[in-house]
């Protein structure tokens, strides 16, 4: 494959073989002045991923240097993401890399798409304007897609072969690319290497923090999310970032939100980004917790939360309450009375949760 293709699709096996064949040491990539543009582009990749899309360069025939920089920026991005080691960042980054390739793949000739597919061990035949793939490859790639149209039952299948369009194949490959990148991260990077990358890392971390904070404080209409205890804020940020919650935390969050008055539909919408989201099941579970079967549930107490490792980021107020719902009640009360009441604040009422 031509080098410029390797630079545009740097996650394929041939690209990583090519890069190791160049014989650059990790240290040179991180410290050499000549590699400065590759490092800048590496940081840019991650920042672009956080903000939305990774923009891919266009190469001219004479752009050898540009190609090399683009190619080397990829391993550098991966080192940065690995040093930070944040699940949300990893997901976001893998998705952005995959989406940017999906956009490119659209306009590539069919032989090229087939060769990318074969890098993912998917054999594709092209005939009569359609791509023919085996159903096992199809379900492997499409099982993470939730829309009805991707279900095998709605596909044209004959003797084990599924027929899909170029656009659809590109979309499926996006999933495969995301899986590969996400699954390979974080890399096992030494402490020393991360130290050397510190200036680049801090730029990304600032941005990451910003985005996470925005996630934590969503608009819930009548529900005041700024009054939520830190454990729930953290869980919500995770849900929205697509991180799968432990069962116990999922229950705690759902019952908490129901108890503070969030409508079932809003909670379902929030879980809609979970990687294993299943609408029917989610609705059933949430309605069950809300009391559809006669018993309505309260979230677990702080001590139970601690037992299951779900207590996170306890603050000053946490030390005075024993239940996440008390946190919310006190804080909203406090807030309401802030302006009216004097400084003598009634933190004396007893918790009876």
């Amino acid at each position, binding site marked *: 494959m031509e080098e410029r293709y390797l630079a545009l699709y740097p996650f394929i096996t041939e690209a990583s073989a090519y890069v190791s064949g160049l014989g650059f040491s990790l240290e040179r990539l991180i410290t050499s002045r000549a590699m400065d543009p590759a490092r800048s582009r590496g940081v840019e990749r991650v920042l672009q991923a956080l903000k939305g899309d990774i923009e891919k360069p266009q190469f001219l025939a004479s752009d050898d240097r540009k190609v090399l920089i683009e190619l080397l920026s990829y391993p550098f991005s991966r080192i940065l993401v690995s040093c930070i080691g944040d699940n949300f960042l990893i997901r976001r980054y893998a998705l952005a890399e995959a989406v940017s390739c999906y956009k490119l793949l659209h306009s590539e000739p069919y032989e090229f798409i087939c060769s990318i597919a074969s890098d993912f061990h998917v054999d594709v035949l092209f005939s009569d304007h359609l791509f023919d793939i*085996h*159903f*096992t490859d199809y*379900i*492997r790639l*499409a*099982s993470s897609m939730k829309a*009805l*149209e991707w*279900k*095998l*039952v*709605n*596909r*044209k*299948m*004959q*003797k*084990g*072969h599924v*027929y899909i369009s170029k656009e659809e194949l590109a979309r499926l490959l996006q999933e495969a690319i995301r899986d590969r990148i996400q699954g390979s991260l974080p890399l096992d990077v030494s402490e020393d290497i991360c130290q050397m990358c510190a200036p680049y890392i801090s730029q990304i971390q600032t941005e990451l923090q910003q985005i996470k904070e925005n996630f934590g404080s969503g608009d819930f209409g009548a529900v005041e999310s700024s009054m939520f205890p830190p454990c729930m804020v953290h869980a919500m940020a995770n849900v929205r970032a697509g991180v799968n919650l432990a069962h116990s935390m999922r229950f705690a969050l759902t019952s908490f939100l129901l108890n503070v008055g969030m409508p079932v539909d809003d909670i379902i919408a929030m879980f809609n980004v979970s990687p294993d989201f299943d609408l029917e099941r989610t609705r059933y579970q949430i309605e069950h917790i809300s009391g559809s079967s006669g018993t309505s549930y309260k979230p677990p107490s702080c001590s139970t939360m601690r037992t299951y490792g779900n207590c996170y980021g306890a603050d000053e107020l946490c030390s005075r309450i024993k239940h996440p719902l008390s946190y919310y009640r006190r804080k909203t009360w406090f807030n309401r009375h802030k302006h009216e009441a004097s400084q003598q604040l009634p933190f004396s009422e007893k918790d009876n949760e």
Partner: protein
Amino acid sequence: MNEKTRNFLVNRFQAYYSQAEIHLPPEHISREWGFISFSDSSETFMKRHIAFGSEGEITDYLKGMGPSHSYYSVAYYEYPSAPKMKEKNWQKADLIFDIDSDHLPGKMNSYAEMLENGKKETFKLMEFLLDDFGFAEKDVHIVFSGGRGYHCHITDPSVLHLESPERREIVDYVSAKGIDIERILSTREVSGDAGRESAQMMVFPSGTEGGWRGRINRYFVSFMKDIVAMDKAEEVLMGFKGVGEKTARKIIEVFENEAQVEVLKGGNIDVLSGLNKKVINTLIEEGIKKMSAVVDEPVTADVKRLIRLPGSLHGGSGLKVMSLDINELEKFEPLRDAVVFGDRLVMSKVIKPFAVQMKGKDIEVEQGEQELPEYVAVHLMCRGVAEYG
């Protein structure tokens, strides 16, 4: 079950295993094995996490123990006998379908009828597996479970590495779960001829298309053909909502004309414009229900499940768990062909009156002590309605 009965059954099962032909699964040394014995405790428990190094060890175990139920894992493990699932190191698993006649819709009056329904369901499943999924007959193994249904084991290498959600997709396919009828039967705006408003044209799949789409066309065309072939075709058609005498006659004309039928098979159903879209939708929804196969989803999705060993005996019925070729299935009569015990008379105490069809005979047994042919006695004892002696 008392001790005497238990001893009798263990003895009969051991005798069976001393001459039985067991169908071992591929790579049997990589499987986990599990057995339930005719035990005296009220709670049944399974001895599992067992591994065998050779075929001889397996047959020796069966001969020696005469277990009431014998299972092996659909999974292939690196360490099949490791006591914790995580330590076994899962490598791959056969693809399994379970058709449990108990779960099939409709009322069933007898055990025989129930088994017959399970067989019909198995045929529907086979059509999907061979036509749509393209599995070779040699890779699809049908097994009568010895109890209420049929299993189907697929050992084609292409499916062994599929994970649970992917296996669920296959179940959804054969059971038509999530099928999007709206997409299959959509309407398209077509611009009308001069002076006419634009019209709606029904988009219909063609009979040669793959998957459910082609199946729906073929079902619809043959369903309508059957109606038209009836003596009272006109009346039947007029029973559909919105179909009058004129439309009914027109439909009959269409189906009597081979050229028109070919057009329908090609996916153009404009000639049936008199048929209301809702009616077509309803007919097709019914057709999908009839064509889909009811299989037990959790069984297929479970890549570590234990499944009955073909050739072993089912301790709840005394019947043989039997491997079948697809061409054997049609003629297979479980209550005749899976009966392994003979006619020697055995003294039995029947606890309550019982009726069953076995070896082609209607057998009705009264309560009380009596001599019964061994195959009946074993069946009754296994089902807990008789004791030995």
